[in-house]
Protein backbone atom coordinates (compact mmCIF):
# COMPACT_ATOMS: atom_id res chain seq x y z
CA UNK A 1 0.00 0.00 0.00
CA UNK A 2 1.63 3.27 -1.00
CA UNK A 3 1.39 6.60 0.77
CA UNK A 4 -1.59 7.94 -1.15
CA UNK A 5 -3.63 4.84 -0.38
CA UNK A 6 -2.74 5.07 3.29
CA UNK A 7 -3.79 8.72 3.41
CA UNK A 8 -7.05 7.81 1.65
CA UNK A 9 -7.74 5.06 4.19
CA UNK A 10 -6.98 7.48 7.04
CA UNK A 11 -9.46 10.04 5.69
CA UNK A 12 -12.08 7.45 4.71
CA UNK A 13 -12.26 6.08 8.22
CA UNK A 14 -12.46 9.50 9.86
CA UNK A 15 -14.65 11.45 7.42
CA UNK A 16 -17.07 8.67 6.55
CA UNK A 17 -16.19 8.84 2.86
CA UNK A 18 -17.95 5.51 2.29
CA UNK A 19 -21.32 7.16 2.94
CA UNK A 20 -20.50 9.90 0.44
CA UNK A 21 -19.40 7.30 -2.09
CA UNK A 22 -22.61 5.34 -1.61
CA UNK A 23 -24.62 8.53 -2.06
CA UNK A 24 -22.70 9.43 -5.22
CA UNK A 25 -23.03 5.96 -6.72
CA UNK A 26 -26.78 5.94 -6.04
CA UNK A 27 -27.42 9.03 -8.15
CA UNK A 28 -28.30 8.18 -11.74
CA UNK A 29 -29.15 10.37 -14.72
CA UNK A 30 -31.91 9.17 -17.08
CA UNK A 31 -30.93 8.95 -20.73
CA UNK A 32 -33.43 10.25 -23.29
CA UNK A 33 -33.77 12.77 -26.11
CA UNK A 34 -33.58 15.77 -23.78
CA UNK A 35 -30.75 14.59 -21.53
CA UNK A 36 -28.47 17.43 -22.64
CA UNK A 37 -30.93 19.93 -21.14
CA UNK A 38 -29.60 18.76 -17.78
CA UNK A 39 -26.25 20.46 -18.47
CA UNK A 40 -27.58 24.01 -18.11
CA UNK A 41 -27.96 23.79 -14.33
CA UNK A 42 -24.38 22.59 -13.86
CA UNK A 43 -23.11 25.29 -16.21
CA UNK A 44 -24.96 27.97 -14.25
CA UNK A 45 -23.47 26.64 -11.02
CA UNK A 46 -20.00 26.75 -12.56
CA UNK A 47 -20.46 30.34 -13.74
CA UNK A 48 -21.76 31.30 -10.28
CA UNK A 49 -18.57 29.91 -8.75
CA UNK A 50 -16.54 32.03 -11.19
CA UNK A 51 -18.61 35.02 -10.06
CA UNK A 52 -17.75 34.31 -6.41
CA UNK A 53 -14.02 34.01 -7.08
CA UNK A 54 -13.70 37.01 -9.39
CA UNK A 55 -16.01 39.04 -7.15
CA UNK A 56 -13.84 38.38 -4.09
CA UNK A 57 -10.76 39.33 -6.10
CA UNK A 58 -12.31 42.61 -7.28
CA UNK A 59 -13.40 43.49 -3.75
CA UNK A 60 -9.71 43.50 -2.73
CA UNK A 61 -9.14 46.73 -4.68
CA UNK A 62 -12.62 48.24 -5.07
CA UNK A 63 -13.62 51.20 -2.87
CA UNK A 64 -17.38 51.90 -2.63
CA UNK A 65 -17.54 55.69 -2.42
CA UNK A 66 -18.49 58.19 -5.11
CA UNK A 67 -15.05 59.85 -4.83
CA UNK A 68 -13.10 56.64 -5.22
CA UNK A 69 -15.30 54.00 -6.91
CA UNK A 70 -14.53 54.99 -10.50
CA UNK A 71 -10.86 55.63 -9.75
CA UNK A 72 -10.48 52.28 -7.99
CA UNK A 73 -12.01 50.37 -10.91
CA UNK A 74 -9.77 52.39 -13.23
CA UNK A 75 -6.79 51.34 -11.10
CA UNK A 76 -7.94 47.70 -11.26
CA UNK A 77 -7.99 47.69 -15.06
CA UNK A 78 -4.84 49.78 -15.57
CA UNK A 79 -2.48 49.18 -12.63
CA UNK A 80 -3.23 45.76 -11.12
CA UNK A 81 -1.73 42.80 -12.99
CA UNK A 82 -4.46 41.00 -14.97
CA UNK A 83 -7.03 43.33 -13.36
CA UNK A 84 -8.61 43.99 -16.77
CA UNK A 85 -9.04 40.24 -17.24
CA UNK A 86 -10.59 39.63 -13.81
CA UNK A 87 -13.03 42.52 -14.23
CA UNK A 88 -13.93 41.43 -17.77
CA UNK A 89 -14.43 37.86 -16.61
CA UNK A 90 -16.73 39.07 -13.80
CA UNK A 91 -18.88 41.14 -16.17
CA UNK A 92 -18.98 38.61 -18.99
CA UNK A 93 -19.61 35.70 -16.65
CA UNK A 94 -22.53 37.61 -15.11
CA UNK A 95 -24.09 37.99 -18.57
CA UNK A 96 -23.43 34.39 -19.55
CA UNK A 97 -24.88 33.27 -16.22
CA UNK A 98 -28.14 35.13 -16.82
CA UNK A 99 -28.29 33.74 -20.36
CA UNK A 100 -27.72 30.17 -19.16
CA UNK A 101 -30.35 30.67 -16.43
CA UNK A 102 -32.89 31.81 -19.02
CA UNK A 103 -32.15 28.66 -21.04
CA UNK A 104 -32.31 26.53 -17.87
CA UNK A 105 -35.73 28.01 -17.08
CA UNK A 106 -36.99 27.52 -20.63
CA UNK A 107 -35.77 23.93 -20.94
CA UNK A 108 -37.10 23.03 -17.50
CA UNK A 109 -40.46 24.36 -18.64
CA UNK A 110 -40.27 22.41 -21.89
CA UNK A 111 -39.59 19.18 -19.98
CA UNK A 112 -42.32 20.09 -17.50
CA UNK A 113 -39.87 19.16 -14.77
CA UNK A 114 -41.88 21.23 -12.30
CA UNK A 115 -44.54 18.53 -11.89
CA UNK A 116 -45.31 17.02 -8.50
CA UNK A 117 -43.25 16.66 -6.30
CA UNK A 118 -40.83 19.26 -7.77
CA UNK A 119 -42.97 22.42 -7.49
CA UNK A 120 -40.80 23.96 -4.77
CA UNK A 121 -37.64 23.23 -6.81
CA UNK A 122 -39.15 25.34 -9.63
CA UNK A 123 -40.18 28.14 -7.26
CA UNK A 124 -36.70 28.35 -5.70
CA UNK A 125 -35.19 28.33 -9.20
CA UNK A 126 -37.32 31.25 -10.39
CA UNK A 127 -36.49 33.15 -7.20
CA UNK A 128 -32.78 32.49 -7.85
CA UNK A 129 -33.17 33.95 -11.35
CA UNK A 130 -34.71 37.05 -9.76
CA UNK A 131 -31.79 37.25 -7.32
CA UNK A 132 -29.24 37.01 -10.13
CA UNK A 133 -31.01 39.78 -12.03
CA UNK A 134 -30.81 41.85 -8.83
CA UNK A 135 -27.09 41.00 -8.70
CA UNK A 136 -26.76 42.32 -12.23
CA UNK A 137 -28.68 45.50 -11.48
CA UNK A 138 -26.82 46.31 -8.25
CA UNK A 139 -23.42 45.42 -9.71
CA UNK A 140 -24.00 47.67 -12.71
CA UNK A 141 -23.82 50.81 -10.53
CA UNK A 142 -20.63 49.92 -8.67
CA UNK A 143 -18.08 51.31 -11.20
CA UNK A 144 -19.90 54.66 -10.82
CA UNK A 145 -19.65 55.54 -14.50
CA UNK A 146 -22.04 57.65 -16.51
CA UNK A 147 -24.00 54.74 -17.97
CA UNK A 148 -24.37 52.99 -14.61
CA UNK A 149 -25.49 56.17 -12.89
CA UNK A 150 -28.32 56.87 -15.32
CA UNK A 151 -29.30 53.20 -15.64
CA UNK A 152 -29.70 53.11 -11.86
CA UNK A 153 -31.66 56.34 -11.87
CA UNK A 154 -34.05 54.96 -14.49
CA UNK A 155 -34.23 51.51 -12.89
CA UNK A 156 -35.02 52.83 -9.44
CA UNK A 157 -37.49 55.33 -10.91
CA UNK A 158 -39.38 52.33 -12.32
CA UNK A 159 -39.61 50.96 -8.77
CA UNK A 160 -41.13 54.30 -7.79
CA UNK A 161 -43.97 53.79 -10.29
CA UNK A 162 -45.41 50.83 -8.35
CA UNK A 163 -48.81 51.97 -7.02
CA UNK A 164 -49.25 52.86 -3.32
CA UNK A 165 -45.86 51.70 -1.95
CA UNK A 166 -43.77 52.99 -4.90
CA UNK A 167 -42.48 56.25 -3.35
CA UNK A 168 -41.44 54.44 -0.17
CA UNK A 169 -39.72 51.70 -2.19
CA UNK A 170 -37.88 54.37 -4.17
CA UNK A 171 -36.55 55.99 -0.98
CA UNK A 172 -35.55 52.58 0.34
CA UNK A 173 -33.77 51.61 -2.88
CA UNK A 174 -31.90 54.88 -3.34
CA UNK A 175 -31.30 55.71 0.30
CA UNK A 176 -32.61 59.21 -0.42
CA UNK A 177 -34.50 61.07 -3.08
CA UNK A 178 -31.62 61.04 -5.55
CA UNK A 179 -28.95 58.56 -6.61
CA UNK A 180 -26.01 59.53 -4.37
CA UNK A 181 -23.09 58.01 -2.51
CA UNK A 182 -25.62 56.48 -0.12
CA UNK A 183 -27.19 54.61 -3.06
CA UNK A 184 -23.74 53.32 -3.99
CA UNK A 185 -23.16 52.08 -0.42
CA UNK A 186 -26.59 50.40 -0.39
CA UNK A 187 -26.05 48.69 -3.71
CA UNK A 188 -22.58 47.59 -2.62
CA UNK A 189 -23.91 46.06 0.59
CA UNK A 190 -26.73 44.43 -1.38
CA UNK A 191 -24.30 43.09 -3.99
CA UNK A 192 -21.67 41.65 -1.67
CA UNK A 193 -23.59 40.79 1.53
CA UNK A 194 -27.37 40.56 1.28
CA UNK A 195 -27.81 38.94 -2.13
CA UNK A 196 -25.00 36.37 -1.64
CA UNK A 197 -26.52 35.28 1.69
CA UNK A 198 -29.99 34.90 0.13
CA UNK A 199 -28.51 33.13 -2.89
CA UNK A 200 -26.57 30.61 -0.81
CA UNK A 201 -29.70 29.79 1.19
CA UNK A 202 -31.95 29.39 -1.84
CA UNK A 203 -29.30 27.61 -3.88
CA UNK A 204 -28.76 25.18 -1.01
CA UNK A 205 -32.50 24.44 -0.96
CA UNK A 206 -32.61 24.15 -4.78
CA UNK A 207 -29.69 21.71 -4.93
CA UNK A 208 -30.97 19.69 -1.97
CA UNK A 209 -34.36 19.29 -3.66
CA UNK A 210 -32.73 18.28 -6.94
CA UNK A 211 -30.77 15.58 -5.08
CA UNK A 212 -33.79 14.51 -3.06
CA UNK A 213 -36.20 14.05 -5.94
CA UNK A 214 -33.66 12.99 -8.57
CA UNK A 215 -33.79 14.10 -12.20
CA UNK A 216 -37.22 14.53 -13.69
CA UNK A 217 -37.99 12.51 -16.82
CA UNK A 218 -40.22 14.25 -19.40
CA UNK A 219 -43.70 12.71 -19.48
CA UNK A 220 -43.42 11.60 -23.10
CA UNK A 221 -40.12 9.79 -22.43
CA UNK A 222 -41.47 8.18 -19.27
CA UNK A 223 -44.44 6.93 -21.31
CA UNK A 224 -42.09 5.22 -23.79
CA UNK A 225 -40.45 3.20 -21.02
CA UNK A 226 -43.36 1.99 -18.96
CA UNK A 227 -41.46 -0.02 -16.38
CA UNK A 228 -39.21 2.41 -14.53
CA UNK A 229 -36.54 -0.19 -13.88
CA UNK A 230 -36.05 -0.70 -17.59
CA UNK A 231 -35.60 2.95 -18.55
CA UNK A 232 -32.02 3.67 -19.62
CA UNK A 233 -29.83 5.76 -17.29
CA UNK A 234 -26.19 6.42 -16.49
CA UNK A 235 -24.42 6.90 -13.15
CA UNK A 236 -23.79 10.52 -12.14
CA UNK A 237 -20.22 9.68 -11.08
CA UNK A 238 -18.23 9.51 -13.29
CA UNK A 239 -20.29 9.30 -16.52
CA UNK A 240 -22.45 12.40 -16.20
CA UNK A 241 -19.94 14.39 -14.16
CA UNK A 242 -17.34 14.11 -16.92
CA UNK A 243 -19.90 15.18 -19.51
CA UNK A 244 -20.88 18.06 -17.20
CA UNK A 245 -17.22 19.08 -17.02
CA UNK A 246 -17.13 19.34 -20.81
CA UNK A 247 -19.98 21.84 -20.45
CA UNK A 248 -17.95 23.77 -17.88
CA UNK A 249 -14.95 23.72 -20.22
CA UNK A 250 -17.10 25.15 -23.01
CA UNK A 251 -18.35 27.88 -20.67
CA UNK A 252 -14.79 28.62 -19.52
CA UNK A 253 -13.49 28.76 -23.08
CA UNK A 254 -16.29 31.10 -24.17
CA UNK A 255 -15.74 33.27 -21.10
CA UNK A 256 -11.96 33.45 -21.62
CA UNK A 257 -12.39 34.33 -25.29
CA UNK A 258 -14.98 37.02 -24.62
CA UNK A 259 -13.02 38.53 -21.69
CA UNK A 260 -9.73 38.60 -23.59
CA UNK A 261 -11.06 39.77 -26.96
CA UNK A 262 -13.75 42.16 -25.75
CA UNK A 263 -12.61 43.64 -22.41
CA UNK A 264 -15.50 45.29 -20.59
CA UNK A 265 -15.55 49.06 -21.05
CA UNK A 266 -15.32 51.44 -18.13
CA UNK A 267 -16.66 54.60 -19.78
CA UNK A 268 -16.44 58.00 -18.13
CA UNK A 269 -16.96 58.90 -14.50
CA UNK A 270 -20.55 59.71 -13.49
CA UNK A 271 -21.43 63.37 -13.13
CA UNK A 272 -24.81 63.58 -11.34
CA UNK A 273 -25.46 67.05 -12.78
CA UNK A 274 -24.70 66.45 -16.45
CA UNK A 275 -27.36 65.34 -18.91
CA UNK A 276 -27.74 61.68 -19.75
CA UNK A 277 -25.55 60.35 -22.58
CA UNK A 278 -27.21 59.37 -25.85
CA UNK A 279 -28.10 55.73 -26.51
CA UNK A 280 -28.32 54.89 -22.83
CA UNK A 281 -29.42 51.30 -22.25
CA UNK A 282 -29.61 48.76 -19.45
CA UNK A 283 -28.03 45.30 -19.66
CA UNK A 284 -29.53 43.12 -22.40
CA UNK A 285 -31.63 41.07 -19.96
CA UNK A 286 -33.55 44.15 -18.89
CA UNK A 287 -33.77 45.48 -22.44
CA UNK A 288 -37.17 43.94 -23.25
CA UNK A 289 -38.75 45.75 -20.28
CA UNK A 290 -36.89 48.97 -21.09
CA UNK A 291 -38.04 48.87 -24.72
CA UNK A 292 -41.65 48.07 -23.75
CA UNK A 293 -41.80 50.97 -21.30
CA UNK A 294 -40.41 53.19 -24.07
CA UNK A 295 -43.21 52.13 -26.43
CA UNK A 296 -46.15 52.32 -24.01
CA UNK A 297 -48.05 55.60 -24.43
CA UNK A 298 -48.17 57.97 -21.46
CA UNK A 299 -51.86 57.22 -20.89
CA UNK A 300 -53.92 54.15 -21.72
CA UNK A 301 -57.49 55.29 -21.20
CA UNK A 302 -57.62 56.86 -17.75
CA UNK A 303 -54.61 54.89 -16.52
CA UNK A 304 -50.96 55.86 -16.45
CA UNK A 305 -49.18 53.81 -19.16
CA UNK A 306 -46.08 53.17 -17.08
CA UNK A 307 -48.08 51.87 -14.13
CA UNK A 308 -49.78 49.41 -16.48
CA UNK A 309 -46.39 48.33 -17.86
CA UNK A 310 -44.86 47.78 -14.42
CA UNK A 311 -47.93 45.90 -13.18
CA UNK A 312 -47.91 43.81 -16.39
CA UNK A 313 -44.30 42.69 -15.84
CA UNK A 314 -45.04 42.05 -12.19
CA UNK A 315 -47.94 39.80 -13.24
CA UNK A 316 -45.71 37.99 -15.75
CA UNK A 317 -43.16 37.30 -13.04
CA UNK A 318 -45.89 35.97 -10.77
CA UNK A 319 -47.20 33.64 -13.49
CA UNK A 320 -43.70 32.26 -14.09
CA UNK A 321 -43.19 31.78 -10.35
CA UNK A 322 -46.51 29.95 -9.92
CA UNK A 323 -46.39 27.90 -13.15
CA UNK A 324 -46.38 24.51 -11.34
CA UNK A 325 -49.63 25.42 -9.58
CA UNK A 326 -51.29 26.86 -12.71
CA UNK A 327 -50.62 23.66 -14.70
CA UNK A 328 -53.73 21.75 -13.71
CA UNK A 329 -54.44 19.54 -16.67
CA UNK A 330 -54.58 19.45 -20.46
CA UNK A 331 -56.56 22.70 -20.96
CA UNK A 332 -54.63 24.92 -18.57
CA UNK A 333 -51.40 23.46 -20.02
CA UNK A 334 -52.43 24.51 -23.52
CA UNK A 335 -53.06 28.06 -22.24
CA UNK A 336 -49.67 28.08 -20.49
CA UNK A 337 -47.89 26.82 -23.64
CA UNK A 338 -49.45 29.59 -25.74
CA UNK A 339 -48.49 32.17 -23.10
CA UNK A 340 -44.93 30.80 -22.96
CA UNK A 341 -44.59 30.96 -26.75
CA UNK A 342 -45.87 34.55 -26.76
CA UNK A 343 -43.53 35.47 -23.89
CA UNK A 344 -40.46 34.05 -25.66
CA UNK A 345 -41.43 35.76 -28.92
CA UNK A 346 -42.06 39.01 -27.05
CA UNK A 347 -38.67 38.76 -25.32
CA UNK A 348 -36.87 38.12 -28.62
CA UNK A 349 -38.62 40.89 -30.56
CA UNK A 350 -38.28 43.51 -27.83
CA UNK A 351 -34.61 42.66 -27.15
CA UNK A 352 -33.77 42.87 -30.85
CA UNK A 353 -35.74 46.13 -31.13
CA UNK A 354 -34.10 47.66 -28.06
CA UNK A 355 -30.64 46.52 -29.07
CA UNK A 356 -30.80 48.17 -32.48
CA UNK A 357 -33.20 51.00 -31.77
CA UNK A 358 -31.82 53.41 -34.36
CA UNK A 359 -33.74 53.59 -37.64
CA UNK A 360 -30.74 52.65 -39.81
CA UNK A 361 -30.18 49.48 -37.81
CA UNK A 362 -33.38 47.82 -38.95
CA UNK A 363 -31.53 44.98 -40.65
CA UNK A 364 -29.40 44.23 -37.61
CA UNK A 365 -32.64 44.03 -35.65
CA UNK A 366 -33.78 41.28 -38.01
CA UNK A 367 -30.38 39.52 -37.76
CA UNK A 368 -30.49 39.47 -33.96
CA UNK A 369 -34.15 38.41 -33.93
CA UNK A 370 -33.51 35.59 -36.43
CA UNK A 371 -30.48 34.41 -34.46
CA UNK A 372 -32.37 34.30 -31.16
CA UNK A 373 -35.31 32.59 -32.87
CA UNK A 374 -33.03 29.92 -34.32
CA UNK A 375 -31.60 29.23 -30.86
CA UNK A 376 -35.08 29.05 -29.34
CA UNK A 377 -36.29 26.67 -32.07
CA UNK A 378 -33.17 24.54 -31.70
CA UNK A 379 -34.01 24.10 -28.03
CA UNK A 380 -37.42 22.77 -29.00
CA UNK A 381 -36.01 19.94 -31.13
CA UNK A 382 -35.44 17.37 -28.36
CA UNK A 383 -38.91 17.86 -26.94
CA UNK A 384 -40.65 16.92 -30.18
CA UNK A 385 -41.26 13.40 -31.35
CA UNK A 386 -39.10 12.54 -34.37
CA UNK A 387 -41.90 10.43 -35.86
CA UNK A 388 -44.52 13.18 -36.03
CA UNK A 389 -44.84 16.13 -38.34
CA UNK A 390 -44.03 18.53 -35.51
CA UNK A 391 -40.31 17.80 -35.84
CA UNK A 392 -40.41 18.42 -39.59
CA UNK A 393 -42.28 21.65 -39.06
CA UNK A 394 -39.68 22.73 -36.52
CA UNK A 395 -36.86 22.02 -38.96
CA UNK A 396 -38.77 23.98 -41.57
CA UNK A 397 -39.10 27.02 -39.29
CA UNK A 398 -35.45 26.75 -38.32
CA UNK A 399 -34.35 26.65 -41.94
CA UNK A 400 -36.52 29.70 -42.62
CA UNK A 401 -35.01 31.59 -39.67
CA UNK A 402 -31.47 30.72 -40.80
CA UNK A 403 -32.27 31.88 -44.35
CA UNK A 404 -33.64 35.18 -43.01
CA UNK A 405 -30.57 35.51 -40.79
CA UNK A 406 -28.11 34.90 -43.61
CA UNK A 407 -30.01 37.07 -46.09
CA UNK A 408 -30.22 40.03 -43.71
CA UNK A 409 -26.58 39.65 -42.64
CA UNK A 410 -25.37 39.43 -46.25
CA UNK A 411 -27.47 42.43 -47.24
CA UNK A 412 -26.10 44.46 -44.33
CA UNK A 413 -22.48 43.50 -45.05
CA UNK A 414 -22.79 44.15 -48.80
CA UNK A 415 -24.73 47.38 -48.52
Amino acid sequence: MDRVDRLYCFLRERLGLDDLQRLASKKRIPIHGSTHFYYFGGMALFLFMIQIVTGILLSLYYKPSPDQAFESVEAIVTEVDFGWLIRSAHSWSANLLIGVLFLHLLTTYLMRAYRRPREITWVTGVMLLGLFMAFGFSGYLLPWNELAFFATRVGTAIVGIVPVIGPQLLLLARGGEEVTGDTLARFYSLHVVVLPLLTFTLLGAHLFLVQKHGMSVPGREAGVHDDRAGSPSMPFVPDFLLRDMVGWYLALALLAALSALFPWELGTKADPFSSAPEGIQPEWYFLFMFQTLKLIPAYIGPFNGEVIGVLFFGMCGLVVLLTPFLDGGRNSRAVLNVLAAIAVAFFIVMTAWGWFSKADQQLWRIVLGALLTTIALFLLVPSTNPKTGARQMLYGFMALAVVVLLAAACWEVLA
Partner: protein
Amino acid sequence: MVDGRQDGNRRAWLLRSLAGAISATVVAVFYPVACFLRPRRATVSGALEVVAPFKVNELPDASGNPFNFGGKPCLVVLTPEGTKRLASGARLRPDDVRAFDAVCTHLQCTVEYRADHDDIFCPCHDGVYDLNGRTVSGPPPRPLEMYKVTLRGAAGKEEVVVSRKS
Protein backbone atom coordinates in the same frame (compact mmCIF):
# COMPACT_ATOMS: atom_id res chain seq x y z
CA MET B 1 -4.09 -6.19 -33.76
CA VAL B 2 -5.08 -4.81 -30.39
CA ASP B 3 -4.19 -6.97 -27.45
CA GLY B 4 -5.09 -6.25 -23.81
CA ARG B 5 -1.75 -4.68 -22.93
CA GLN B 6 -1.88 -2.24 -25.82
CA ASP B 7 -5.43 -1.32 -24.90
CA GLY B 8 -4.29 -0.63 -21.32
CA ASN B 9 -1.47 1.54 -22.61
CA ARG B 10 -3.84 3.53 -24.72
CA ARG B 11 -6.20 4.06 -21.82
CA ALA B 12 -3.35 5.12 -19.54
CA TRP B 13 -2.14 7.55 -22.18
CA LEU B 14 -5.63 9.02 -22.53
CA LEU B 15 -5.97 9.40 -18.76
CA ARG B 16 -2.55 11.07 -18.59
CA SER B 17 -3.51 13.54 -21.34
CA LEU B 18 -6.76 14.29 -19.52
CA ALA B 19 -4.88 14.95 -16.28
CA GLY B 20 -2.36 17.05 -18.19
CA ALA B 21 -5.07 19.14 -19.86
CA ILE B 22 -6.84 19.72 -16.55
CA SER B 23 -3.55 20.70 -14.84
CA ALA B 24 -2.79 23.11 -17.69
CA THR B 25 -6.23 24.71 -17.24
CA VAL B 26 -5.68 25.05 -13.49
CA VAL B 27 -2.32 26.77 -14.10
CA ALA B 28 -3.84 29.03 -16.77
CA VAL B 29 -6.57 30.08 -14.34
CA PHE B 30 -4.47 30.49 -11.22
CA TYR B 31 -1.53 32.35 -12.76
CA PRO B 32 -3.58 35.51 -13.47
CA VAL B 33 -5.24 35.17 -10.05
CA ALA B 34 -1.87 34.98 -8.29
CA CYS B 35 -0.61 38.00 -10.25
CA PHE B 36 -3.81 39.89 -9.40
CA LEU B 37 -3.23 39.29 -5.69
CA ARG B 38 0.27 40.82 -5.83
CA PRO B 39 0.04 44.40 -4.48
CA ARG B 40 0.33 47.31 -6.84
CA ARG B 41 3.77 48.87 -7.13
CA ALA B 42 4.28 51.53 -4.45
CA THR B 43 3.77 55.02 -5.79
CA VAL B 44 6.68 56.49 -3.73
CA SER B 45 10.04 54.78 -3.44
CA GLY B 46 13.71 55.64 -3.50
CA ALA B 47 15.07 59.13 -2.77
CA LEU B 48 12.64 61.55 -1.18
CA GLU B 49 12.58 65.05 0.24
CA VAL B 50 9.66 66.37 2.29
CA VAL B 51 9.14 69.65 4.17
CA ALA B 52 7.67 69.00 7.63
CA PRO B 53 4.24 70.64 8.20
CA PHE B 54 5.55 72.71 11.16
CA LYS B 55 8.37 75.13 12.06
CA VAL B 56 11.23 74.43 14.47
CA ASN B 57 9.87 76.74 17.17
CA GLU B 58 6.67 74.65 17.42
CA LEU B 59 8.66 71.63 18.62
CA PRO B 60 8.56 69.42 20.61
CA ASP B 61 4.73 69.34 20.74
CA ALA B 62 4.13 70.41 17.15
CA SER B 63 0.82 69.24 15.76
CA GLY B 64 1.33 67.00 12.76
CA ASN B 65 4.44 65.37 14.20
CA PRO B 66 5.02 62.54 13.16
CA PHE B 67 4.12 63.49 9.58
CA ASN B 68 3.71 61.55 6.33
CA PHE B 69 7.08 60.88 4.75
CA GLY B 70 6.49 58.83 1.61
CA GLY B 71 3.74 56.78 3.22
CA LYS B 72 5.60 56.21 6.49
CA PRO B 73 5.46 58.33 9.68
CA CYS B 74 8.53 60.50 10.31
CA LEU B 75 9.26 61.84 13.82
CA VAL B 76 11.17 65.13 14.19
CA VAL B 77 12.92 65.70 17.54
CA LEU B 78 14.49 68.89 18.94
CA THR B 79 17.33 67.91 21.32
CA PRO B 80 17.48 69.50 24.83
CA GLU B 81 20.53 71.51 23.73
CA GLY B 82 18.58 72.73 20.76
CA THR B 83 15.68 73.74 23.01
CA LYS B 84 18.08 75.77 25.17
CA ARG B 85 19.69 77.45 22.17
CA LEU B 86 16.28 78.27 20.71
CA ALA B 87 15.15 79.80 24.06
CA SER B 88 18.30 81.96 24.26
CA GLY B 89 17.87 83.12 20.70
CA ALA B 90 21.10 81.51 19.45
CA ARG B 91 21.42 80.01 16.01
CA LEU B 92 20.51 76.25 15.90
CA ARG B 93 23.25 73.81 14.95
CA PRO B 94 22.55 71.19 12.24
CA ASP B 95 22.70 68.41 14.86
CA ASP B 96 20.01 69.97 17.10
CA VAL B 97 17.08 68.76 15.00
CA ARG B 98 16.86 65.06 14.15
CA ALA B 99 14.39 63.06 12.11
CA PHE B 100 13.66 59.34 12.41
CA ASP B 101 11.64 56.71 10.66
CA ALA B 102 8.98 56.55 13.43
CA VAL B 103 8.18 52.87 12.88
CA CYS B 104 9.43 50.79 15.81
CA THR B 105 11.84 48.07 14.66
CA HIS B 106 10.15 45.58 17.00
CA LEU B 107 6.58 45.14 15.71
CA GLN B 108 5.98 48.32 13.71
CA CYS B 109 4.09 50.51 16.21
CA THR B 110 4.66 54.25 15.80
CA VAL B 111 7.05 55.69 18.39
CA GLU B 112 6.77 59.04 20.25
CA TYR B 113 9.18 61.59 21.74
CA ARG B 114 9.12 61.88 25.55
CA ALA B 115 10.39 65.34 26.50
CA ASP B 116 10.47 64.54 30.23
CA HIS B 117 12.74 61.51 29.64
CA ASP B 118 14.67 62.86 26.65
CA ASP B 119 14.11 59.63 24.78
CA ILE B 120 11.99 58.06 22.06
CA PHE B 121 9.45 55.62 23.42
CA CYS B 122 7.32 52.90 21.85
CA PRO B 123 4.12 52.53 23.91
CA CYS B 124 3.19 49.11 22.53
CA HIS B 125 5.94 47.04 24.19
CA ASP B 126 7.90 49.66 26.18
CA GLY B 127 10.79 49.94 23.75
CA VAL B 128 13.11 52.90 24.50
CA TYR B 129 15.52 54.57 22.05
CA ASP B 130 17.95 57.41 22.71
CA LEU B 131 18.03 60.56 20.59
CA ASN B 132 20.44 58.92 18.17
CA GLY B 133 17.87 56.19 17.48
CA ARG B 134 19.83 53.50 19.32
CA THR B 135 17.96 50.98 21.47
CA VAL B 136 18.29 51.72 25.18
CA SER B 137 15.95 49.10 26.62
CA GLY B 138 13.06 46.86 25.68
CA PRO B 139 12.50 44.50 22.74
CA PRO B 140 13.50 46.56 19.62
CA PRO B 141 16.21 44.59 17.77
CA ARG B 142 17.62 47.43 15.64
CA PRO B 143 18.07 51.20 15.93
CA LEU B 144 15.59 53.54 14.24
CA GLU B 145 16.58 54.74 10.79
CA MET B 146 17.76 58.37 10.92
CA TYR B 147 17.03 60.80 8.07
CA LYS B 148 19.00 63.86 6.99
CA VAL B 149 17.61 67.18 8.27
CA THR B 150 18.21 70.54 6.63
CA LEU B 151 17.03 73.76 8.25
CA ARG B 152 16.12 76.74 6.10
CA GLY B 153 14.43 80.07 6.54
CA ALA B 154 14.49 82.81 9.22
CA ALA B 155 16.49 82.01 12.38
CA GLY B 156 14.29 80.67 15.18
CA LYS B 157 11.49 79.87 12.74
CA GLU B 158 13.30 77.53 10.37
CA GLU B 159 11.53 75.05 8.18
CA VAL B 160 12.51 71.41 8.64
CA VAL B 161 13.40 69.64 5.39
CA VAL B 162 13.72 65.87 5.81
CA SER B 163 15.39 63.82 3.11
CA ARG B 164 16.61 60.31 2.53
CA LYS B 165 18.84 58.79 -0.10
CA SER B 166 17.45 56.01 -2.29
